[in-house]
């Protein structure tokens, strides 16, 4: 085996995640979450749900996100979820999931397809209403949706009234970060 280790960069091209504090809000780049898509194979839904239950992996209904002790997941599209797990312990997340689900599911590593930003603080819907047409004020905790933010297809998850996760395309991390920061500044 070659005697070296590749050093990762965050989506914003830094050694460590970027944190911005703007007024009452904190915007945090998250590089510590591993992602994989999980879709059930035709006719294997019941098996897959059983296996998920056994593994403590939630499979929330449409437009919802749920978190378990290790695994969390949000609904992406009919028959498909995005699974979240701690990066440190689950970097090769696909291998972990294949071990659980085998051929009942189609599983694809998605960790570095996305950049994740967590926006925290009271009244954060004032920031996001400038970016997305998702009605965050009316959404319950655990709401998850796909939405456009500055031309970028993103996932938006309301963890609580004061915490929202935005997943955007990793290659556009800079543009998405800029949009979030500018929107926050304009309502501080």
């Amino acid at each position, binding site marked *: 085996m070659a005697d070296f280790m590749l050093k990762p960069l965050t989506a914003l091209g830094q050694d460590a995640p970027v944190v911005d504090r703007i007024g009452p809000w904190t915007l945090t780049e998250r590089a510590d979450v591993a992602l994989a898509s999980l879709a059930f194979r035709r006719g294997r839904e019941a098996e897959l749900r059983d296996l998920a239950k056994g593994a403590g992996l939630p499979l929330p209904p449409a437009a919802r996100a749920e978190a378990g002790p290790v695994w969390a997941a949000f609904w992406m599209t009919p028959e498909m979820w995005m699974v979240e797990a701690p990066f440190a312990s689950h970097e090769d997340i696909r291998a972990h999931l294949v071990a659980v689900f085998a051929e009942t599911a189609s599983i694809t590593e998605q960790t570095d397809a996305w950049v994740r930003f967590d926006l925290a603080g009271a009244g954060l819907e004032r920031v996001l209403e400038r970016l997305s047409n998702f009605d965050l004020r009316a959404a319950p905790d655990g709401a998850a949706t796909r939405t456009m933010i500055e031309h970028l297809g993103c996932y938006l998850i309301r963890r609580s009234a004061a915490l929202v996760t935005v997943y955007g395309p990793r290659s556009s991390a800079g543009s998405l970060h800029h949009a979030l920061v500018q*929107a926050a500044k304009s309502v501080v």
Partner: protein
Amino acid sequence: MSQTHRIDAKLSAGQVDRSRTLRFHFDGVAYAGHPGDTLASALLANGVRLMGRSFKYHRPRGPISAGSEEPNALVELRSGARQEPNTRATVAELFDGLTAQSQNRWPSLRFDALSINDRLNSFFTAGFYYKTFMWPASFWEKVYEPIIRRAAGLGTLNRQEDPDSYDKGFLHCDVLIIGAGPAGLAAALTAGRSGARVILADEDFRMGGRLNAETFVLGEASGADWAKAAVAELASLPNVRLMARTTVVGTFDHGIYGAVERVSDHLLEPLPGKPRQTFWRIYSKRAILAGGATERPIAFENNDRPGIMLAGALRAYANRWGVAVGRRVAIFTNNDDGLRSAVDLAAKGVDVVAIIDSRADATLLPGIRHLRGAVVTDTAGRLGLSQVTVRHADGRSETIGVEALGVSGGWNPVVNLTSHHRAKPVWREDIAAFVPAGGESGLAPTYVAGAAGGDLSTHGALVTGNEMARRALEDLGFAARPSDLPRAEDAPVVLQPLWHVKGAKRAWIDQQNDVTVKDIKLAHQENFTAVEHLKRYTTLGMATDQGKTSNVLGLAVMAELTGKTIPQTGTTIYRPPYTPVALGALGGRARGRDFKPFRLTPSHKWAAEQGATFVEVGYWMRTQWVPRASETEWRQSVDREVLATRRSVGICDVTTLGKIDIQGTDAGVFLDRVYANTFSTLAVGKCRYGLMLREDGMVFDDGTTARMAPNEYVMTTTTANAVAVFRHLEFCRQCLWPDLDVQLISTTEAWAQFSVAGPNARNLLQKVVDQDISDAAFPYMAAGSITVGGLRARLFRISFSGELAYEIAVPTRYGDAMIRKLMEAGAEFDAVVYGTEALGVMRVEKGHVAGNELNGTSTALNMGLGKMVSRKKDSIGMVLSQREGMSRDDGLRLVGVKPVDPADALKAGSHLLKTGAAATVQNDDGWLTSLVWSPHLGHYIALAYLKNGANRLGETMRAVNLLAGTDVAVEIVSPHFIDPEGERLRG
């Protein structure tokens, strides 16, 4: 002396804060006003009536209104880069340090050289341009149009970049209420108290609408105080969002409204980080339009002098702003509301010298000289009104000296926003005005309340506001609580229509576009009687005010001329926006570098450090070439990158190619159907070039697809079609073959992928990967999972350059480290990074098709890939690709082209002609699709589509480019300029 026309505070304090003074300048002269003033009210308080010049005749003009319907008092607000033309002084909120200039005049507002146009008015009638500039035709472009363009327009642009930012956003509500007058406030109280999510938007900076401009009482409180209390209650409700300074400018489908919030327009400069304006898209389940009504003028001779304004505006200036536009005023009216203006003004100490009432049978108003059955026939005053001529009922004329004249021809409900959905307004004879069709308008779930619906009394506004809110709540399942509405005036509309005073020669209908009664008559005479023709022939209602005060008047005059009724003549249809919207507000944050998002490749940071030149490919920023210090011209860099790659090894970031993970037990079947060639037979651990057709048989996209496991494939697409192909596959999966067990997801961004090409590619890669990748262990077209320093990675042995080549992928976060590692490991081989230009050169040298050949009108046969379309299975596009016209033996074929004399330069886009043939379309045999300089061969080479190309290798032709004026002898050759046998890539 300052503010000479401010009414004594004891008589009318108004809603301005007289304890504070704001300084401002108009045309360089310093004035003072108070918080709560508009620019117009402050100027009028200082005795300034003249605020602008008219569009065509450069007539002196002052404000005729106190609101957003204003056609005349347009100014250039602010200075320098923030200068904003055509701003209505009647809605520009006064702030300390405001500067404004009059516009459309030279050298000054008082003396304007182009007022000569007014003398020449007989030339500038309707249709003037169409009739005058017909001859000679050659003059139009060079002479007439430049002159007309110079004379046209009102304000000027400063051509400097706007220093402010604009924002946009999205709001949601159960009930959107547009307008915060009595109807809107009543609706908001009812809806807000019920718990529904309410947005109340009003264009004014002070909510209350006409309640702020009237002296009515509601219950025990003044109208303004009642409005203030209502707003305070609404502000305390967490489910209500109050949006003052917000104009709803358009109605769109599905209850969506566009609104502009003027966040910082009332400040000298926006606060740091704050936008000047925000454009909101409001999603409403129900909307209540309570936009009120606009008073309309009566047309009479010289009715446009500064000092002549709408009677309701005259009393609004007195009541709300404590301003007497003139000390001696008269009122010209055809309805009782005009009398109300006279009463209010008299109560404020203004000398109302006469009410000229066109109605002979009007109820006599005691205490004021009330001339019934009289009309105003003319006015005088050079830069402002000084006298009016009145014709009494008995035919006698009288001249009356006045400084201001209030005119009231009745009120027009603001139907604009219901018009946006093509809901045709209906004529109501009793108020002689158009109202929105029914209580509910057309497509959108919009209710109309108050004056906007034709209920012109305060009582009517409160009742309908409450009622429409109740209906909206009922629709949405909210229980409306009973509301205790205050007692309010409920005067009926008593009006006898009078549109224009007969016999007038120059009586203005549309003051902003200088359309007179005479123009309407001319349009009638020349048979432009249809309302849409009338508008375009005379430009009636086509200015920035959209004819808010003029459209109905123009229609009425046309109706009189044609002998039809007004509804028979037509209605007026308004389009968005309700008031002008700055392009900056529509653009929001998307300007300059933020116009669109960028996609950066994993090696971007490294490449930027090397001083790479980047090229935009969609949103991607790709490395185009990486210049070295000694290289002064791009070709030097590109040639070096190509030669170094072919000599030893080159590395290119190919992350931008689309990557789609295709899994499922039917993945192979699925691929067989979407690709023209077969994939179900592909061995695990192998990849294959695939060709994808559209339904019509044309080539859609190409790329390689690898089989990573029995039920798992990784497809690559071109960069340009990554999204389109994914969309297509999803369509196929969901709609065409939902029975197949296939799951798709894009992994384009998940992997940083690098092409490593050249004779030393394997030697380099073997230093960084952990597995044996010798030709035996990892042969041509092999694919599989490997590790790089223990890290999971993927390796594909594929080549676009024609060299021994691989594509290696690592999780994107390691992409930066990977390029650095590859360059470090490649140092001993003089490895280079090559950009998209070198990539292009090498693929043309190898004869690979790319975007220029995949042009949407080419078949596999055209590209020389006809055999790839398998007939053994069905696939999208297979059948239609066999159409006769697309499978001719002598059709276009991909060929190579090189100049006969290697020293000759070829031009891109050249067409191929037989030697000796004239350069005509009939003789066109094909064209160069891709052209590069081949440093390897030392001359230009090209790919081309050539008729019967397969049978013409060796033929000498001409490459003609008529635009560049080139005509070069060329030889038709195989498109494979380098290593036609493919020995290198299999090495």
